[in-house]
């Protein structure tokens, strides 16, 4: 056995398991690409309005999209917004949406689920009834209701989604904890007089966190889908904001071109659309690979 630190060895082993799966390689490659684009956005597409880089620059107001040219390599969309600029800065928007929703709802849901699953009793009962109520309405519909009540805007959409999505994490972590709670090593810790807080932190969460990670990875994608649909129907980002959903909305009236050239405006939808799909695909592939890698049945014997 090699002499590296055991934690390092574990990490290596985990990574080996993850990357044994081709879907993980594709997923992470895509993700690295998107991260690169997001980080380098100011270099790749220098903002025209320094105070608000997310505002897409536009030349003129003509409603007809223009095809890719030297000035705009991906063409322009309706209203002459530059597609290239929008796609680049839209990557940042996508990360912003995903990370915000997943981090907030994940932390909230995991905390709540851990406490309620570990202690059980009336607290758990009450919390479960509240989540039951939350479960009764589909995410998108509830998000729409909340956004209508709070007002439009991308920030409102993000808040609304975070307010809804925690229910998933509560459910996932709770079911994990219910099985872990009666495991012998948790009982052993209790015999040693370890406090409940430390038991949750040291024994339960590290063993329950993988399903949450898988969930979070899948959520990064699905939240971006939901948010872009909200933008598409006009509840999300305002016009001209660098957001993929918004750009698809701008393309909506041009999906069918003139009769002689029906696919003339393909770039207006294909480019932002491909961004959304690849972004979501990246996270889903990663989630899928994690699911395989962390499957307790397939892990070591």
């Amino acid at each position, binding site marked *: 056995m090699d002499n590296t630190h055991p934690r390092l060895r574990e990490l290596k082993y985990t990574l080996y398991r993850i990357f*044994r799966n081709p879907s993980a390689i594709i997923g992470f490659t895509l993700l690295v690409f998107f991260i690169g684009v997001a980080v380098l956005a100011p270099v790749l597409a220098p903002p025209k309005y320094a105070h608000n880089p997310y505002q897409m620059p536009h030349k003129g107001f003509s409603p007809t999209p223009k095809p890719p040219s030297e000035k705009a390599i991906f063409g322009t969309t309706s209203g002459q917004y530059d597609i290239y600029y929008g796609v680049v800065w839209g990557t940042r928007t996508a990360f912003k949406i995903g990370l915000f929703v997943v981090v907030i709802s994940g932390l909230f849901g995991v905390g709540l689920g851990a406490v309620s699953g570990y202690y059980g009793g009336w607290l758990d009962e009450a919390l479960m009834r509240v989540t039951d109520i939350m479960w009764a309405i589909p995410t998108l519909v509830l998000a729409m209701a909340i956004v209508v009540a709070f007002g439009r805007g991308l920030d409102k959409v993000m808040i609304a989604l975070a307010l809804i999505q925690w229910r998933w994490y509560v459910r996932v972590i709770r079911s994990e904890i219910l099985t872990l709670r009666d495991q012998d090593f948790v009982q052993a810790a209790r015999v040693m007089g370890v406090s409940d807080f430390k038991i949750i932190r040291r024994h339960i969460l590290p063993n329950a966190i993988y399903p949450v990670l898988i969930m979070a990875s899948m959520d990064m994608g699905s939240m971006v889908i939901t948010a872009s649909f909200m933008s598409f129907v006009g509840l999300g980002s305002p016009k001209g904001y660098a957001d993929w959903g918004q750009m698809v909305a701008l393309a909506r009236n041009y999906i069918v071109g003139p009769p002689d050239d029906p696919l003339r405006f393909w770039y207006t939808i294909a480019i932002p659309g491909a961004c959304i799909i690849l972004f979501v695909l990246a996270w889903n592939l990663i989630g899928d690979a994690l699911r395989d890698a962390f499957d307790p049945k*397939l892990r*070591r*014997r």
Partner: protein
Amino acid sequence: MTPLIRTENLVTNFYTYEGVVRALNGVSLVVDHGTTFGLVGESGCGKSVAVRSMMRIIQEPGRVEGGRVVAFFDPRDKRRGIDLLQQSEAYMEHLRGDQISMIFQEPNAALNPIMSIGDQVAESFLFHKKKEMAAAVLAAMDRENGRPPWPLGAFQRALYARTAVSPRDPLVALTGRLPLVRRWQMRLRREALRRSVEIIGKLGIPNPEAVARLYPHNLSGGMKQRIVIAIALACSPLLLIADEATSNLDVTIQAQILDLLRHLKETEIASILLITHDLGVVAETCDRVGVMYAGNLCEVANVTDLFNAPRHPYTRALLEAVPRLHQDGPLRSIEGAVPNLVNPPAGCRFHPRCPEARAICRKHFPETVHLGGDHSVACYLYTDRPRGEGAA
């Protein structure tokens, strides 16, 4: 003694992510007609794999990769052996449950949770006794009314008649699958259920009709194990394989089941192949014993010889490691642990833990030598030849 089933150099490997698990490393054993053969060893030594390979029910990612399993199941010519590994899957399906059957370790998992007990036992009859049952149904139909009164009845009768001739008749198979039409088999099912109630009752379960209607979760562990035995016994097999059949049961229930097995051995089945890690069970029920270690059969002997004069160092150590009823002095323990079969030790797989290991033990696996009195052992204490050299 005539052999009933014999394995020759059986090799089974499991292709896992961690590597190739060499679970069976050339196992040769013989189960004779009318005996109880015990296969003992610690967990992971390959005893379950051995019997599953014999029945060809190794699950993914395992593969039987070498050797022969010769079965002498022909009632007319007991010398005529058939290599099961060469037969088609259909042949094996026909054989399993009819001539060889198996009971499993965990009665809670061995039964389908959403199928009634009666149906699960009845399946055995439906797989193997369709012909006889169809004939019985036909006879009953003829008794009830001389001639079938309506066309559907005539159709039904015709189908039963065809089943009684050949249960694999294409028309029977087709009509047995079509929705609604397949209801013609109702009487066959009822007949199978009647037989299952009978066999359940025979195993000493009170009120078998009611039990047949229950589901596995309604029964206690001991009862479930009886049902599993009923399934295995349904078609009166020649060989019953009991894979740790009593290990997960309580002492008093285990006593009941062992008693039942002993009784069945005298009345119903020819031979039992009993797999266990409990030397006590072996001593009490078996005639011959094989000791396995890390995928190898190290010693085979009659039960009294094995307990009184063990030859292989592993057998000796094992016998000294279990507490006896009249134990005086401390238990001898075997140092070290069972090796990982992905990367087994070269040579004799026991050599790292063997107190009598020699240089040659580290290099080659020893040949199996026959000492007197049906006692065979694979150890360099008794031979100088490694396996593969000079073997006839």
